[in-house]
């Protein structure tokens, strides 16, 4: 007596991101099992689940940092074709530098902590082949400005900045090249509540103004609720439920999702 959801009929655009049956084991541990997801252009997909649910591993695979044991991953972009997991290292690096942006929970993973903030952003542009100094400087400060980074601190290294500011530098680096896909791994975890609100607001603004497709992983349901159009719930490497964000929060179907939603303060 359950209703099955149809394929899209009104929305004609193809999904930007399509991952199919992705699985990954580390030794005896099955980190991700048979996960499939589609994200449409401009859509924000939230992935929730507790530690060890496989949500961050899945995100790292979408960033081509990890290769799964099986499964496929495609992006609907003119410059790439076929399963992205099959790309060689050089092609992966180029694709990540130019079309995929990522913000990590831990800024040390995404930033050179002792280089200047603008240098960190410009580095991304250099990898993509930009060599003109004036263009580098201008694009880097544009991206930092959009990320609401104070421009009088362009030369400050992230090591000297607060957690919220470091996340803004990561965000600026991630969006400097106007990526087709922005991946966010617990972007506000560990920040003060007020700073968290600022970062969330920046992301929301970015999503509305630039229509960037996003996948955001968080164990914080409030963050997901604020940003995501659609939510995927993971547990022990598997997807237990997926649906519209308000539906997942108001009428969760799976026992685990009900437990998760009811546990929220």
């Amino acid at each position, binding site marked *: *007596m*359950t*209703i*099955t*959801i*149809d*394929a*899209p*009929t*009104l*929305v004609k655009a193809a999904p930007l991101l399509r991952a199919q049956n992705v699985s990954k084991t580390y030794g005896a541990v099955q980190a991700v099992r048979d996960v499939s997801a589609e994200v*449409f252009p401009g*859509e924000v997909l939230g992935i929730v689940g507790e530690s060890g649910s496989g949500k961050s591993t899945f995100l790292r695979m979408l960033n081509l940092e990890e290769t799964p044991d099986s499964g496929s991953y495609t992006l609907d972009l003119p410059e790439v074709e076929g399963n992205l997991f099959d790309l060689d290292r050089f092609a992966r690096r180029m694709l990540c530098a130019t079309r995929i942006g990522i913000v990590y929970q831990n800024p040390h993973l995404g930033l050179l902590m002792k280089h200047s903030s603008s240098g960190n952003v410009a580095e991304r542009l250099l990898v993509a082949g930009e060599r003109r100094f004036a263009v580098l400087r201008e694009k880097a400060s544009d991206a930092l400005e959009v990320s609401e980074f104070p421009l009088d601190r362009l030369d400050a290294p992230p090591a000297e900045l607060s957690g919220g500011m470091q996340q803004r530098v990561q965000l600026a680096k991630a969006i400097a090249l106007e990526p087709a896909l922005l991946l966010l791994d617990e972007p506000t975890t560990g920040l003060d509540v007020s700073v968290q*609100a*600022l970062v*969330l*607001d920046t992301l*929301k603004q970015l999503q*509305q103004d630039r229509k960037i497709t996003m996948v955001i992983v968080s164990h914080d349901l409030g963050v997901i609720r*604020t940003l995501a*159009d*659609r939510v995927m719930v993971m547990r022990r490497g598997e997807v237990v439920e997926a*649906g*519209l964000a*308000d*539906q997942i929060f*108001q*009428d969760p*179907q*799976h*026992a685990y999702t*009900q*437990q998760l939603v*009811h546990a929220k303060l």
Partner: protein
Amino acid sequence: MTTVLEVQGLTKGFTMHHLGNHLAAFDQISFDLKAGEFLLLKGQNGAGKSTLLRTLYRSYIAQAGQVIFHSNHGAIDLLRAADVDITLLRREEIGFVTQFLVARPRVSAEALVAEPLRLAGHSAEAALQEARKWLAEFGVKGDLWRAYPTTFSGGEQQKVNLARALILPQKLLLLDEPTASLDVKARAALVARLKELKAAGTAMIGVFHHPDDVAQLIDRVIDLTPGLENEEREDVVV
């Protein structure tokens, strides 16, 4: 008048896994709705009035039935439509007015109200102009337009909420007790706006604690009291 919505055998209940039980909300509800019609849902607390609205909006997943919505893009079953299709319809054709404003940190009242227009492609400036017009219409004072509604009183928040929910004319409008906590002026503005939208063809389904507030708008009534046969549910207002 053209048909906007065809509801057939709509059934909804909640399975509560931690209690190991199933709670029925309503069973086998059927009705049609035409453009410009206003349908009032009635029944005591717990009869499933709000649940029915949320099921049509797809915040809730139905157990059985079919809800054909005649969208500008073609007919579609709202119970089974893909999430992206629902998102599209919510942006363009189906509105939901609740009793609560979903305020966002650091977003001003006027920006919040302008948002549906901006998402529909209006220029930022035009959207803001229109937003201010509706904030004034619902009686929100000018000094508050650029403030953050997170800190507003319940009544002021509700005015912002109404302005936002009603700024963009929709094909189908779901109303869940929008008059709760409104002062007289705002209530009059709400009724005037609903009247205007109705005349322009918006079909409406509403739940009102005091249906007298909107008595002049109601065309039909559906009684959700459990145990009634479908023929007994419906009542036409003359």
